């Protein structure tokens, strides 16, 4: 028994529900992929693939919880006030050792992350690509250009998804065992900011949903794999 083993025990117990990838991330990813398929495909695959992906997501939503409960058991997190935890996180700049032990339940945590992601994205957008131009000292709002609006919406999808992954990595103590969260977050944030210049093909609804959906599925699978690796292979010591 080493100190790393105890730290792994603490981390997995603390984030047990979040690491159940088939419960949330994979189904949400499959639903995103189903919308991507609906937006991009034509002909008979457009009828079959989205339905199959959606059905798979629903099956996982219904059955994954029971699978995790019967295979790995159950834990209940320590309930705290989300606002108190958030202010503590911000004041300590997310430094893991200074954080209080109690954690916010998964639902409110995702809502907080989503809210933060929206706020950061809007701030970023207003600072670097504001929806107005100044002509002869007069502020003129651009509007009515569907291509520009569409491009902005697509970049917003990348940005929100990227910030979600970055925020999740932050809340999960920036563990070295979870580099994929940081990697995916940086990739998606990069597409949100530099996509139109570095990868113009990525600025399409179908592609954006495909990339984000695949990222969610991949992160969910890796979370699940990590959980199985820790809880599934431990033997008597």
């Amino acid at each position, binding site marked *: 028994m080493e100190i790393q083993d105890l730290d792994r025990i603490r981390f997995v117990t*603390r984030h047990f529900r979040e690491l159940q990838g088939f419960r949330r991330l994979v189904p949400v990813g499959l639903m995103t992929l189903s919308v991507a398929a609906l937006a991009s495909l034509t002909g008979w695959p457009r009828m079959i693939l989205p339905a199959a992906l959606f059905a798979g997501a629903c099956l996982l939503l219904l059955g994954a919880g029971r699978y995790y409960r019967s295979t790995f058991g159950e834990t209940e997190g320590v309930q705290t006030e989300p606002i108190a935890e958030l202010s503590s996180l911000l004041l300590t700049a997310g430094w893991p050792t200074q954080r209080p*032990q109690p954690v916010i339940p998964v639902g409110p945590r995702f809502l907080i992350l989503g809210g933060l992601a929206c706020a950061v994205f809007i701030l970023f957008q207003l600072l670097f690509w504001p929806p107005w131009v100044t002509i002869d000292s007069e502020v003129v709002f651009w509007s009515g250009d569907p291509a520009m609006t569409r491009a902005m919406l697509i970049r917003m999808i990348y940005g929100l998804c990227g910030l979600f992954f970055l925020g999740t990595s932050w809340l999960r103590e920036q563990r070295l065992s979870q580099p994929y969260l940081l990697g995916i977050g940086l990739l998606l944030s990069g597409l949100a900011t530099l996509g139109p210049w570095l990868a113009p093909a990525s600025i399409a609804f179908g592609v954006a949903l495909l990339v984000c959906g695949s990222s969610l599925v991949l992160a969910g699978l890796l979370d699940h794999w990590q959980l199985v690796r820790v809880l599934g292979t431990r033997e008597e010591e």
Partner: protein
Amino acid sequence: MNATPFEQIANLDRRVHDPARLSILTALSACERADFLFLQRITGLTKGNLSSHLSKLEETGLVETEKRFVNKKTQTLVRLSDDGRGTIESYWKEMEELRRSAAGWRLQRTELVPTPG
């Protein structure tokens, strides 16, 4: 006068200073409560071993157990008592102090070793 590292080791709480019990208490300190299956999975202990350790921990008042029926099966839920939460926190503080004083003690010993020549 400060205790030597050996005295600090001797004074460690024996209820906690055991790999299996430390694993159980560490897991329970990271959540509100956990069921028997989860503790078995996370610690890697057999049912019998885990049950025996939990009984000892319950006898000493560090954990509290509760049984309930879920789908006609008994589910055992375990949580740290207030005393248990305080005990595990002070155990980690003692371990940290021990680590620091052991490092200092090694330096003092080095100073006492006569240099050749």
